[in-house]
């Protein structure tokens, strides 16, 4: 089946099995290796991408279902001012250690902040509740998102 969508702003067409995982298409066909595979079953968030602005797990998304959608991976997001605000805040707060979970957390933060630019701590924890981190213990990540949200006029 031919499937059309945009990835990081570029229109693309793939001719592939529509049941293929969006994760595999993004990594193997497009080389977006910032999309990670952790659990492969919707439990960890390492494979998170934005589909039409909403956070989605690409490991359980058949590529055929994103026909006509706009997909954003960390590679596309990193060219934005918002990314730079999150990057700086995460660095300052110690929200990154090994980094495997980080693209997923950054996109979860974006999905949250675009709907709710001034989240409470509970709302931040809820916003990242689909993501697991084996290193930081989460406090640094939560702190980082809090700090990012304080950046003037970015969200």
């Amino acid at each position: 089946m031919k499937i059309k969508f945009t990835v990081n702003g570029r229109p693309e067409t793939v001719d592939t099995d529509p049941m293929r995982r969006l994760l595999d298409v993004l990594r193997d066909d497009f080389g977006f290796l910032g999309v990670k595979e952790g659990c492969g079953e919707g439990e960890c968030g390492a494979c998170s991408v934005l589909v039409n602005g909403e956070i989605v797990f690409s490991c359980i998304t058949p590529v055929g279902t994103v026909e006509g959608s706009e997909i954003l991976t960390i590679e596309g997001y990193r060219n934005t001012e918002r990314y730079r605000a999150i990057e700086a805040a995460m660095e300052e707060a110690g929200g990154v250690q090994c980094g495997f979970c980080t693209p997923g957390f950054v996109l979860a933060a974006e999905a949250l902040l675009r709907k709710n630019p001034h989240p409470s701590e509970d709302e931040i924890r809820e916003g990242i509740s689909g993501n697991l981190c084996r290193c930081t213990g989460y406090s640094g990540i939560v702190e980082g998102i809090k700090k990012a949200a304080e950046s003037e006029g970015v969200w």
Partner: protein
Amino acid sequence: MVTQNVVYRPGSLEEAYRLRTDTGALPLAGGTDLMVRYRKTAGLVPDPGRPVLFIGHLKDLRRVEERAEEVRIGSCTTYTELLSQKAVPEILKRCITLLASPPIRNRGTVGGNICNSSPAGDTLPVLHALECSLVLGNIRGERTVPIDRFITGPGENALSEDEILKEIVIPKAAFSGWCYRKIGTRRANALAKISFAGLYLIESGEVHDIRIAIGAVAPTVVRSREIEKTIIRIPRTSLQRSTVEMAARYRPLIRPITDQRSTTGYRAGVTLVLIEQFLTAVLQKKG
């Protein structure tokens, strides 16, 4: 050789019905259950072993309509979409905010939860308590089935090979209050050990309607109209003295399937406490 899945992406509900009849293809709404069920090792394509019918994109299945007597929810409306709809009952919204995590809620659908018919489906006790019915359609027409007659066992339901769940119909009814509780290991993403839905109506100091539905403690949702009847219209003072006794009547109905999430003893003990706490809360309510 690697085989390709046969997948259909119909342009309309009509076409979906036709494809379902002609090919017996498996409907896929959000895919959050199916993609996990049919996953293979990393990099390989999930393969259900039969044709697949994408339905999640169909506008006719993705809507909420409020009518005078009822609210109709299209089967493929996502959880996130339902949270933003005024017409959706609060008890269902509360249940959804405790279900999985935002990325799952952005894709998962209430129709998928119903048709998956898992004993741990969180929306099921809520939909039983609300006395929903389901509109099942095929190429020839539609039929409406109450939810408690649709789900027949763990993973089993009355959907025919040529049917698609079209809508969930929630009748409007007056309630003084509601309660939804989910007992699980971790807040996000954990399947329930027990999920509890309670609704009640109190008028001039008497309980006029009470509905208790419990999920994950038996092969299908536990609800007993017989026990509920014994609670309705008895004076509050005598009910007050007997909440523990009332709750204990549910004990024989708690027969969980064996699974890794919990034991029978734990589930039974906690369920009775949840029921008792609910009854106590109902009795404290003025009205």
